């Protein structure tokens, strides 16, 4: 495969590696505690299964991207890489979507269910999680771009010449 074809996808995978690793690390290190009357709020990412799922998916995606960076794109494995890229993009997409839903409840509460927002009590945790979600969102978008590039490389789809 020519170098001019390999450089864009290498850069994209590098960007995806940075995004997924930073999302994982920022979410893991998010921690805050607050004392309110006689209630103690301690906020960690393990309190919510959604955030644990997010950390797991981003860790898997970062490991996968790291392995693929050192793998030169041989065309014999192109189809397997394409399927794995599709699976990874969908998993990242689902994890960021679920975290955004739970984060919205944490920020605004849900008056109908009697759930109070927690971002007023633990603002550092909320900001940390917001940063991790931004990184996760960037990772999902970059993975979709990687998927399109994989499709192009494997199937030669996008030539538009007569």
């Amino acid at each position, binding site marked *: 495969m020519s170098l001019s074809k390999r450089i864009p996808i290498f850069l994209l995978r590098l960007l995806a590696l940075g995004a997924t690793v930073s999302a994982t690390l920022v979410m893991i290190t998010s921690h805050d505690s607050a004392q309110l009357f006689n*209630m103690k*709020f*301690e*906020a960690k990412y393990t*309190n*919510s*299964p*959604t955030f644990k*799922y997010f950390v797991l998916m981003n860790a898997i995606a970062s490991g996968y991207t790291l392995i693929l960076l050192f793998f030169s794109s041989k065309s014999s494995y192109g189809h397997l890489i394409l*399927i794995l890229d*599709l699976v990874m*993009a*969908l998993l990242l*997409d*689902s*994890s*960021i*979507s*679920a975290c*955004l*839903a*739970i984060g*919205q*409840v*944490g920020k605004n509460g*849900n008056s*109908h*269910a*009697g*759930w*109070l927002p*927690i971002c007023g009590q633990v603002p550092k945790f909320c900001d940390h999680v917001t940063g991790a979600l931004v990184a996760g969102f960037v990772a999902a978008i970059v993975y*979709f771009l990687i*998927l399109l590039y994989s*499709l192009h490389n494997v*199937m*030669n*789809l*996008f*030539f*538009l*010449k*007569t």
Partner: protein
Amino acid sequence: MASERGEKQETCHGKVPLTRSKLDLVLLLLRLLAFLATLSAMVVMALNKQTKTIVVATIGTVPIRATLTAKFQHTPAFVFFVIANGNASLHNLLMLVVGFMGPKWNFKGLAHLAIPVLDLMNVAIVSGGASAAAFMGQLGRDGNSHARWNKICDKFDSFCDQGGGAMIASFVGLMLMTVICSVSIIRLRNHNGNKIILDSSVVVP
């Protein structure tokens, strides 16, 4: 253009008759099932509502009742779920129509690309909606003791059951749509080979 997989095509003036291969019929059947799954997920969640009258206090001997309603609109995740599944069912319906009426129309080359791209977009949207609703439902069923959020499924059990059924239908639809998306991308390569044919050829989504 001679295609593989048993599709025969003769160019006359205007109509292009086509004998469908078995793969086309299987794909249309899968699309019909995916359409039904996403449509039922959307309808079941949109009709999700439960009203319950709970005694909140007792003054003397008179119990004071409050009427609480659980609707799907109260949760933005469920609203997104309904919208995402509605979008996907509309897309599947349009692809079914194109699949049945396809041989009568002649498309240029770029339209062949639109179908797999739209399929991929709708798979992403449905996966986002289904997973957001699933985690929201898990929060409603188990609550979150660390954030002092009480569970609601013990009081509104039929609301939770109906929501769970809608989520199952959506996940089934998501799996079917992923299979359809992969097959339509592979067919793109078979139709085009190494270059995009810019004249008319038959499109079967």
